């Protein structure tokens, strides 16, 4: 990049030398940006002076597509929003749509929903930790260990719903089909072996001096800024606010399970805190899973939702604690089989509000780590 004739560059005087700011586009094709995401960074040496995130490369206008399709037909598209956690996205949409009509979800379906959601949380957090450490430079080893565990859970999803990632399993009023025989025992086995895997993973990572020195003190987020910027999920809890929708809203049957919500004091909300909060949340998910698998009753899977889903004119906002934050669906119904307005509240996009604040003043390598710790998935940011 020539410094001579570019009009955007400011010429600085430093130690008697004429220098300028370097503008780098960490462009859409980048192995560390978790998808097609671009950051325009202005660098002074290696220090970040300005950072502008640019996205929209994966914009499929899901919201407008859903206005032309029936409610059921846009369920497969919600799988593809945050493509790591398709089960959670399905639940958020089913929750919002069930607020529009009065339908009761049977007990067994509620328990299975919680089981699927917590398995999804395990999948997401373990993949995230793997990718985060991958961005730090540990080329592949922790990621592959994480994916090994993820494979076991994806096998469970395939047996329950027919597809590994794009499950399309939830319906308004229940689930699509019951889990096959032996599934609960297999799920129990996976859940029983998970804590020892987590112990090993923590031994691999959590005392590693390289990780400690690269993530502690990096990307601090204060509590006030986090609340004002609408940050939710593990990022908010790492900044000191104990706000978990499973405890606040108590949607589904979460009020029956005993689990804790890990959060910090809020002194520093750095990348190390976010990483550790996710490790602790995985352990809490295992607690919930054990309780749910022990207490699941037999019974029906589908409540009596009408065959053609035509709600009366109303509005509903249904939200869940997704693994990345608060995933909400805002539906406006007008009496026809198609929604009038379908809005997805994407946690990844809102969490990106504070990216610039956290990265300014740090080094360029830290920007990659901070982006990794926010946990974005471009399918959700762009919809």
């Amino acid at each position: 990049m020539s410094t001579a004739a570019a009009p955007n560059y400011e010429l600085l005087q430093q130690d008697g030398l004429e220098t300028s700011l370097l503008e780098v586009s960490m462009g859409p094709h980048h192995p560390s940006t978790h998808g097609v995401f671009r950051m325009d960074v202005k660098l002074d040496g290696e220090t970040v002076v300005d950072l502008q995130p640019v996205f929209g490369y994966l914009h499929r206008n899901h919201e407008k597509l859903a206005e032309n399709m029936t409610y059921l037909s846009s369920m497969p598209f919600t799988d593809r929003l945050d493509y790591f956690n398709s089960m959670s996205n399905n639940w958020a949409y089913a929750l919002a749509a069930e607020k529009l009509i009065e339908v009761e979800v049977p007990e067994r379906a509620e328990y299975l929903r919680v089981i699927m959601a917590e398995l999804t949380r395990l999948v997401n957090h373990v993949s995230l930790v793997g990718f985060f450490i991958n961005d730090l430079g540990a080329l592949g080893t922790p990621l592959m260990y994480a994916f090994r565990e993820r494979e076991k859970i994806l096998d469970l999803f395939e047996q329950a719903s027919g597809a590994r990632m794009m499950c399309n399993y939830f319906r308004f009023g229940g689930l699509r089909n019951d889990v096959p025989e032996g599934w609960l025992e297999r799920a129990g086995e996976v859940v029983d072996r998970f804590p020892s895997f987590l112990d090993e993973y923590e031994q691999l990572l959590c005392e590693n001096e390289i990780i400690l020195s690269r993530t502690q003190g990096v990307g601090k987020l204060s509590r006030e800024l986090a609340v004002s910027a609408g940050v939710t999920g593990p990022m908010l809890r790492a900044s000191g606010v104990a706000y978990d929708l499973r405890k606040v809203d108590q949607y589904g049957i979460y009020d029956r399970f005993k689990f804790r919500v890990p959060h910090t004091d809020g002194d520093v909300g750095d990348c190390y805190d976010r990483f550790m909060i996710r490790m602790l949340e995985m352990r809490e998910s295992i607690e919930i899973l054990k309780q749910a698998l022990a207490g699941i009753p037999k019974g029906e899977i589908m409540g009596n939702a009408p065959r053609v889903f035509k709600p009366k004119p109303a509005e509903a906002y249904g939200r869940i604690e997704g693994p990345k934050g608060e995933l909400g669906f805002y539906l406006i119904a007008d009496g026809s089989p198609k929604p009038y307005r379908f809005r997805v509240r994407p946690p990844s996009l809102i969490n990106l509000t504070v990216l610039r604040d956290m990265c300014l003043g740090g080094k360029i390598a830290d920007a990659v780590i901070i982006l990794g710790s926010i946990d974005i998935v471009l399918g959700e940011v762009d919809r």
Partner: protein
Amino acid sequence: MNELSHEPVLQQFPDAVWDEAAGAVILPLGQARAVAEWLLGQGVDYCSNVTGVDYLEREVKEKITNDAGKVETITRTEPSRIDVVYHLYSMQNKTGPLVLKQRTGRDNAEAESLTPVWRSCDLQEREVYDLFGVNFKGHPDQRRILMWDEFEGHPMRRDYTEPFDYEWEPTPHNEILEKHQKGKVIV
């Protein structure tokens, strides 16, 4: 979870209107920022969702009681408008939601930006500007966010038609397109 009541808002700002059907407070023109700051002082510190809804001009049938005392159905034209909807919660008190709406017309759509009050409105109001064309007064950085900068038009509007720049390639989809134009398949 506890409900966040809208009554205090209506008491403090008598121009605000409560819309029962939508369950939302319609903010009066020009006072949106004041309402937001007052709410922030009350502990409503988390703006969860900001979105826009487009309504074209349509005919609405209503049942009213006319002067003679009989119930009759009249048809009136509901003017077109764009709503900007805010869902607010309180993280301190763990209550919510409170729904606010700002109403504006479709030509020269303008609204007040609540970004100085809640930082989470920043990117979401940019998205409403990009996809609906609502100009937010007081927004620190209003530019297109999901579409590219030189794009013309506002895709989420109900009367948006796609420009004819489609690169044609022979695929079987054309038969579906023809069927749709004949009215046999609802797309």
